């Protein structure tokens, strides 16, 4: 790790670039679409969305599940990689963890957007009040609030802890108000062995803790559906199915983001083809796991031949939602199977294209889990239809904008690749003693 590397990695933070500024403005505008649409919706009531009876949940909940799924990229993957001591993780962890935090922030917005009376959302929190009323702890939605809250808190910490040494490095180089901010953020980091020891312990503890939380989050999200009586929702495998899907979509966005960083920030040297090759194998594995769950889920329903479930099944497979269903199968299964098994397919270019396809496919998967079930209730008289409205599309689009915007802000504040971890990695490789000893042991 030489000063040249440091300069390159710190460049987006310290100097920025035209591309970054442009991206920031463009994504801010897109995020503005979300704000405008949501504002309009609050002013004109939820009726401006396309949801109706019986499709009470639509694109908003699709987005919620999608973004919460995406959030499994980071923390979960980085924690696994850290705990298993995979060396190639070093350039990956930071940007993966950031994905988690921002995807959670965006995903967490959707339950609010979808509320009939969003200004009363605090009633879902166990706050003391004059009426002596508590939230209903039996409701999976409350589990959601708890789990997502915990996960957000945990993954924020998990992003923040390993960033402390880098923040301190930035503090040392910055001037003016930036220096004051970085000083505050760095929490007095001086790089003493005691501090390194504490940090290493903290990161290890967080990595262990965050894993079950991450698994629980998407399990609980799946239970929003599985705990209900709706045909094709009431399924025991929804927990693992959703977690698998979440990790799958998480890897997809990780691949896409890393490819973008590699190109946009010129980080090819750090985010190497090896990294993509390894990630690609993981990606392929998750594609297989996802396909296995999807197949199992549909096969059991089809074989069971229960009338109410079959109505949903046929609607997905050959009815109104068949185009979406088969697009999903192609994007999530066929394409990855044709591309990822080959080393050339796992190179940044093709892999990121596959990843974008998988993201779209996973969005469709969430949509296909939610809407056909709601549109085909048990009492067949009430069969429904759902066409998302402009406001819903605007908010969906704006959510991507918001995510990109937050990510851009992040890139302007913290180096996308962890300086000290790269340094530690390099040190480990060349076996010089530049990096502090504890870091090598603990945070592999």
């Amino acid at each position, binding site marked *: 790790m030489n000063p040249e590397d440091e300069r390159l990695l710190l460049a987006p933070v310290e100097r920025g670039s035209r591309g970054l500024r442009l991206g920031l403005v463009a994504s801010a505008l897109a995020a503005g679409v979300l704000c405008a649409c949501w504002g309009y919706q609050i002013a004109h*009531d939820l009726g401006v969305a396309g949801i109706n009876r019986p499709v009470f949940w639509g694109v908003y909940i699709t987005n919620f599940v999608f973004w919460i799924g995406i959030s499994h990229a980071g923390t979960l993957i980085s924690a696994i990689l850290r705990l298993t001591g995979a060396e190639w993780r070093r350039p990956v962890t930071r940007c993966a963890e950031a994905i988690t935090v921002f995807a959670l922030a965006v995903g967490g917005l959707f339950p609010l957007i979808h509320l*009939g009376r969003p200004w009363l959302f605090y009633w879902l929190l166990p706050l003391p009040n004059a009426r002596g*009323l508590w939230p*209903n702890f039996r409701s999976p939605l409350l589990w959601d609030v708890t789990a997502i809250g915990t996960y957000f808190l945990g993954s924020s910490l998990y992003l923040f802890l390993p960033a402390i040494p880098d923040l301190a490095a930035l503090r040392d180089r910055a001037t003016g108000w930036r220096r004051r901010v970085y000083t505050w953020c760095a929490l007095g980091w001086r790089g003493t062995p005691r501090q390194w020891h504490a940090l290493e312990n903290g990161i290890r503890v967080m990595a262990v803790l965050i894993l079950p939380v991450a698994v629980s989050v998407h399990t609980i999200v799946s239970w929003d559906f599985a705990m209900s009586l709706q045909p094709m929702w009431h399924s025991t495998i929804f927990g693992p199915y959703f977690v698998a899907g979440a990790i799958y979509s998480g890897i997809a966005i990780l691949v896409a983001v890393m490819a973008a960083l590699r190109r946009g920030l010129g980080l090819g040297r750090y985010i190497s083809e090896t990294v993509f090759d390894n990630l690609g194998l993981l990606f392929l594995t998750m594609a297989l796991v996802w396909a296995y769950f999807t197949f199992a889920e549909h096969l059991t329903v089809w074989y069971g031949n229960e009338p109410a479930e079959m109505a949903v099944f046929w609607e997905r497979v050959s009815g109104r939602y068949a185009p979406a269903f088969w697009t999903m199968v192609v994007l999530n299964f066929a394409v990855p199977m044709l591309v990822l098994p080959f080393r050339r397919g796992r190179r940044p270019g093709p892999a990121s294209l596959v990843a974008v396809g998988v993201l779209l496919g996973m969005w469709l998967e969430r949509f296909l889990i939610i809407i056909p079930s709601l549109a085909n209730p048990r009492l067949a*008289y009430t069969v429904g239809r759902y066409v998302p409205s402009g406001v819903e599309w605007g908010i969906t689009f704006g959510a991507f904008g918001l995510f990109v915007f937050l990510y851009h802000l992040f890139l302007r504040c913290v180096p996308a690749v962890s300086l000290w971890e790269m340094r530690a990695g390099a040190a480990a490789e060349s076996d010089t003693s530049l990096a502090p000893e504890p870091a090598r042991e603990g945070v592999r």
Partner: protein
Amino acid sequence: MTRWAMAIDLDRCTGCEACVVACHAENNIRLVGPEEAARGRAIHWLRIERYYEGEYPDVRVRFVPVLCQHCGAAPCEPVCPVYATYHTDEGLNAMVYNRCVGTRYCANNCPYSVRFFNWHAAPWPDPLQRQLNPDVAARPAGVMEKCTFCVQRIQRARQQAADEGRELRDGEVQPACAESCPTRAIVFGDLDDPDSRVARLSRSGRARRLLEELGTHPAVFYLARGARESSGEP
């Protein structure tokens, strides 16, 4: 203890939908215009479901008036995060508009699709608001609503009985649908009183409950079409 329940005799129901309008008139159900209705936002706490059997020329039609079944084990209740819907001591599935934040989870978890959402606030062009029932709250936008078994009538009758220092009599409380029904197909009363009409009808051989196999324990009994002599009815 009282446990409110309803029996609907499908052999008497002709599908005239008088109950549907009576429900609107009693419960201040909001006016949903044609555009919104086309988007699936129409609100009818009570509806007559019709199912065709067979094809022309050999067709039969079944009618099922469907309203909130006030399930003994209601799937809508546990999923509400704020207790806006819960079970009362009298077996009613309560919906508290004040408390509702509008997650619409209850509606998704209702196998009978009898819960409705206020996508917009209610328009009452003057002087239409003069018809509104003062005993029933006008719901704001963003909350769920559904059949209450005309709880305001239950309250009114109970007050009346308390004023007169007596217990409620069987048949004294009639929801708007039951009261309007031209064929007297709807019977309402206390299931815990073994002599009430509804309790006796619930024991009939013709009595069924809707989607009973889901274990929801509905409080609405449907009496199947056909002769009643062998059904052991009063």
